[in-house]
């Protein structure tokens, strides 16, 4: 018997990430700079780490309630109200998950019947499509355009809707484009959805990293509240990626069913991480401000440097990526990344990795030190000169 024969076809059909080869190459290089990883370069603020350590010292190492500790859910409810003006009952409308990723997975598994369609604006984070497939659904990709500020337009949404549409993913602020959706944009989408049974899965993991304005959650549009699952977490806002702490806020019925799936698959999110998360929400607002200000400086620096170097670059309004257009080089985004890495030892990610509409762009993460960013931009100039011959 070959074990391979046993594996479900929908799993073997999942495409492995096309960017792995760059990173194997990167490993072999000295003094390479990676702007490839979408993760804060700051360590978790000390008071938050300390709260985790303290809980371990006290021996708080048991499972928590399936939906997460009540004291944490209360903090999340207070935070949602304080930051986004949203009201959620900690008893029945909130579940603590293992990162935002589990939250997305839970939402899709709770919603989808075989053949149900999920509308996914792209370029966007790579997980929505595969998780939809794993949950038995069918991804329907909608290419957002730079000229629309990478927003999903009402016309695009309208055109993508079918009888089978079950859910709409709203990945804003968007990785990799840096696009965001304002109140008016969301109201226009709400108008299209009116009278239809379609859920909104709003991935707001970068909500705190919005520049020059405040993040607007789709759930704050009255007609969307009852159909929206807000996915959020601690990874990006508090630099807590490795703690694996996320949460969902949603209508009661949705949470009740997702708690069941979570209970069987996960039991409960890590206890140490939940203690740290309580501290983060109680006294971490300042940390967020400090880090956001720092990202904002780097963002401006990078956009400026990219434009100086002659690349067309949309000014990102959220998250921590820039998404310059590299069509002027005549290279595909994969070629660009491979040659940039080989020649100048800087790793960036081809836009094609983020789904339809990503070709012609590359993603650079500016959650890196100013020194690395400045050096990467020097090397980019050298690379572009080299291309011109």
């Amino acid at each position, binding site marked *: 018997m070959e074990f391979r024969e046993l594996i479900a076809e929908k799993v073997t059909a999942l495409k492995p*990430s096309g*960017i*792995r080869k*760059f*990173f194997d190459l*990167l*490993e072999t290089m000295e003094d390479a700079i*990676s702007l*490839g*990883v*979408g*993760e804060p370069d700051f*360590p978790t603020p000390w008071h938050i780490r300390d709260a985790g350590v303290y809980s371990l010292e006290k021996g708080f190492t048991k499972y928590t309630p399936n939906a997460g500790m009540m004291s944490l859910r209360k903090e999340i409810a207070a935070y949602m109200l304080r930051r986004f003006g949203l009201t959620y009952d900690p008893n029945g409308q909130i579940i603590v998950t293992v990162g935002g990723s589990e939250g997305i997975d839970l939402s899709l598994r709770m919603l989808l019947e075989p053949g149900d369609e999920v509308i996914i604006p792209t370029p966007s984070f790579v997980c929505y499509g595969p998780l939809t497939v794993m949950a038995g659904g069918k991804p329907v990709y909608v290419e957002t355009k730079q000229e629309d500020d990478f927003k999903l337009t009402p016309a695009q949404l309208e055109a993508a809707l079918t009888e089978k549409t079950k859910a709409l993913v709203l990945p804003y602020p968007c990785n990799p484009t840096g696009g965001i959706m304002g109140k008016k944009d969301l109201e226009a989408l709400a108008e299209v959805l009116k009278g239809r049974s379609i859920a909104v899965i709003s991935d707001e993991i970068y909500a705190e990293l919005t520049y020059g304005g405040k993040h607007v959650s789709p759930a704050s549009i009255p007609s969307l509240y009852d159909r929206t699952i807000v996915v959020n977490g601690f990874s990006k806002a508090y630099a807590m990626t*490795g703690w694996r702490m996320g949460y969902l806020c949603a209508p009661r019925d949705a949470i009740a069913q997702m708690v069941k799936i979570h209970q069987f698959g996960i039991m409960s999110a890590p206890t140490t991480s939940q203690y740290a998360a309580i501290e983060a929400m109680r006294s971490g607002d300042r940390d967020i401000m400090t880090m956001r200000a720092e990202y904002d*400086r*780097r963002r*401006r*620096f990078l956009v*400026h*440097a990219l434009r100086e170097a002659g690349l067309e670059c949309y000014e990102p309004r959220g998250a921590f990526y820039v998404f310059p257009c590299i069509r002027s080089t005549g290279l595909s985004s994969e070629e660009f990344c491979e040659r940039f890495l080989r020649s100048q030892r800087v*790793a960036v*990610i081809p836009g094609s990795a983020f789904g339809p509409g990503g070709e012609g762009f590359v993603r650079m993460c500016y959650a890196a030190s*100013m020194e690395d960013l*400045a050096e990467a931009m020097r090397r980019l100039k050298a690379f572009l000169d080299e291309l011109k011959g």
Partner: protein
Amino acid sequence: MDTGTELLKLLEKDCRATPDQLAAMLGESVETVRGEIAELEKNNVILGYNAMIDWDRTGEELVTAMIEVRVTPQRGDGFDRIADRIYQFDEVESLYLMSGSYDFAVTITGRTLKEVASFVSARLSTIEGVIGTATHFILKKYKEKGVAFETLPVQEERMKYC
């Protein structure tokens, strides 16, 4: 926060940032930034540009002490006249007027323990108005001006891309 404060914060963190970089980060023109820096220097808001050095990692043997100084304030000048006489010694690295059980906190660095001790007894204690001192030698520096002397180890085995 206005751009002046923002500019100062950036410079306080890294005074080697070039006007070009600062301008890009602040969203200002290079000329504006150059002008602001010149103005801030002229007004003594920016007093200097120093490197942070961990001398313990070099061959240099240096001794740093924090000295608590108690004084009798003088009529008319209060503490300032005595402060003037203390801080003008080159050996004095910092001088603060304090609330609490003593008046001045003086930091000085010398090559040897003896050198520091003799500065205290011969120079500091003899200033008119000084009524007592207590010298504390610094055994190890962990952090100064927001900069830690040890860097955190880098976590190995991280996700390479996402």
